[in-house]
């Protein structure tokens, strides 16, 4: 997996793993921190859960859904979805989805939660941005991480 094709983020939470797991996988608790609401009742493997965003701003009440892949108690929770914001004028129904995986790990004094999102290379051509800006700062940062990835032998 190339570093340009995935996103990984981690954070330490001062709470037991079982507590973090509940906040992550109890649909009611999930909605609170994810800033969303749902008429569905529970996350289940194979289920499609439909949400509306409750985050204030232009996407308030915007609908999105996640297709649950795996639920391994207190270890792993994953879903597929269409990443980023959806342009209401754009039909994303037929597009490949990215895979979002949460994993939990015990650490001293709490829990580390890691989210990994993969599959950006699969995304449909229709969503290619037509406009972009030059970003030298971002570019330099990217090159530095590429150099680290491949080391001196690159």
């Amino acid at each position, binding site marked *: 997996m*190339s570093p*340009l*094709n995935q*996103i990984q*983020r*981690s*954070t*330490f*939470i*001062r*709470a037991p793993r079982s*507590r*973090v797991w509940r*906040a*992550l996988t109890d649909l009611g*608790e999930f909605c*609170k*921190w*994810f*800033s969303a609401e749902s008429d569905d009742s529970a996350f289940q493997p194979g289920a499609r859960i439909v949400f509306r*965003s409750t*985050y*204030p*701003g*232009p*996407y308030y009440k*915007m609908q999105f859904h996640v297709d649950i892949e795996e639920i391994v108690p207190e270890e792993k929770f994953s879903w597929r979805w269409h*990443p*980023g*914001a959806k*342009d209401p004028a754009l039909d994303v129904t037929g597009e490949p989805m990215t895979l979002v995986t949460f994993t939990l790990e015990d650490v001293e004094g709490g829990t580390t*939660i890691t*989210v990994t*999102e993969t599959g*950006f*290379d*699969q*995304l*449909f*051509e229709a*969503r*290619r*941005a037509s406009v*972009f*800006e*030059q*970003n*030298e700062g*971002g*570019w330099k*940062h*990217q*090159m530095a991480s*590429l*150099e680290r*990835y*491949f080391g001196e032998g*690159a």
Partner: protein
Amino acid sequence: MKAPESRVRPPSALFAALGDATRLRIVVRLARGEPLSIKQLASGARMTRQAVTKHLHVLAAAGVATPSRQGREQLWALDRRQLAQARLFLDGVAQQWDVRLARLKASLEDPPR
């Protein structure tokens, strides 16, 4: 702070082009500055010229590499705008996750009373 649901779109052909370790190596070499010939790229990467040519054409189709001619030799250089665009997209998605994880952390460490 930017709204986490910012309007971001994935440059998908670009990610497909870069989703290959060999092509990324070519990108890294071109990123060091001078345009390079297929021969130079092949010798540095210990690849055949045919293989390098094939990868360069994938990169060109995604707008990452562009050919130019210097005398009788074709040289290849990077077009950095597409890569900057990919970075912007991934940064946007990553930022959304940072915001969400921060909210999860806050909800568990400082629960509302």
